């Protein structure tokens, strides 16, 4: 769900870790554990690799020791803020094939939602992802594409264009996005930039608030867990 998905959809991220969104069910976790064993992966941080932690929104972190993947970080998550439950993500996934292997990626709208975090690096990424999608489909845009762009575009020039091309649809979504309200209300460029910045700040703050109890729990686990016990399953 991370770097390679971003590359596929049009942004570029030279990410050296591998992020997996998984269904946190007993049988599935057992299968994943087998794959991690093949990679000689060792858990490198709290929390433990347990269903309960995954279902409450924690990520579990591994580092591989297999010679062909030495040092590779693998992060596993099951629940992400603002993102639908796994069965819906799976239904909407993109599957790609490369050199005889197939890979399942989060759909672009789900990836964009997952990237709305408190980290600086995710926001330019979101902008790039949606720009690439816009230029790929703008000549044959479906109603679904237009709605996605109206909801998610973060590039002032493109937002201005899509609102001008689809004023009725933009009007229908006006109450759901302040940026659209600004555009439809004749906002100048400065006001539009401000509305976008404010939207980003709200998401980042929501992410910080979401993570507060989880971070406290992680701190507690770190205090309880000697280092030697972290590097285990």
């Amino acid at each position, binding site marked *: 769900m991370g770097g390679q998905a971003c590359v596929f959809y*049009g942004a570029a991220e030279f990410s050296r870790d591998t992020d997996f969104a998984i269904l946190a069910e007993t049988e599935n976790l057992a299968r994943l554990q087998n794959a991690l064993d093949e990679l000689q992966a060792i858990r490198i941080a709290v929390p433990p690799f347990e269903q309960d932690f995954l279902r409450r929104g924690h990520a579990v972190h591994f580092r591989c020791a297999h010679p062909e993947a030495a*040092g590779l970080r693998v992060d596993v998550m099951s629940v992400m803020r603002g993102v639908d439950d796994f069965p819906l993500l799976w239904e909407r996934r993109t599957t790609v094939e490369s050199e005889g292997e197939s890979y399942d990626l989060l759909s672009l709208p789900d990836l964009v939602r997952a990237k709305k975090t*408190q980290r600086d690096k995710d926001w330019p990424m979101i902008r790039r992802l949606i720009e*690439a999608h816009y230029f790929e489909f*703008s000549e044959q845009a479906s109603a679904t594409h237009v709605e996605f762009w109206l909801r998610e575009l973060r590039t002032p020039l493109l937002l*201005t264009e899509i609102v*001008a091309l689809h004023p009725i649809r933009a009007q229908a979504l006006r109450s759901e996005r302040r940026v659209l309200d600004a555009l439809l209300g004749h906002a100048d460029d400065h006001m539009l930039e401000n509305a976008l910045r404010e939207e980003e700040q709200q998401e980042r703050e929501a992410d910080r608030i979401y*993570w507060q109890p989880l971070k406290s729990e992680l701190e507690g686990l770190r205090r309880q867990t000697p*280092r030697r016990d972290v590097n285990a399953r």
Partner: protein
Amino acid sequence: MRSEPSRRIQPEDVCEAEWAEWYRLTPAQRWQESQKLWATYLALGGSLDSEPDTQSPFFDAREWRAGLAHGRSGLRVLRRGGV
């Protein structure tokens, strides 16, 4: 509301030429280019061990210190010109 645009916006209108070129690739082409970049990076001795992400809510300074002792050495800058 602003008036309907007379000319559609092009990638070059919103980003640098290199990005515009990247946008014009198909997803499969971007995937391939990324694989080539990976191959080059690994051939140059680049490490798979990722950089610490200090803004991540998962970030644990203890874990990253421990991690540095593992894996291959990362890419080192031997010479850097200009600024």
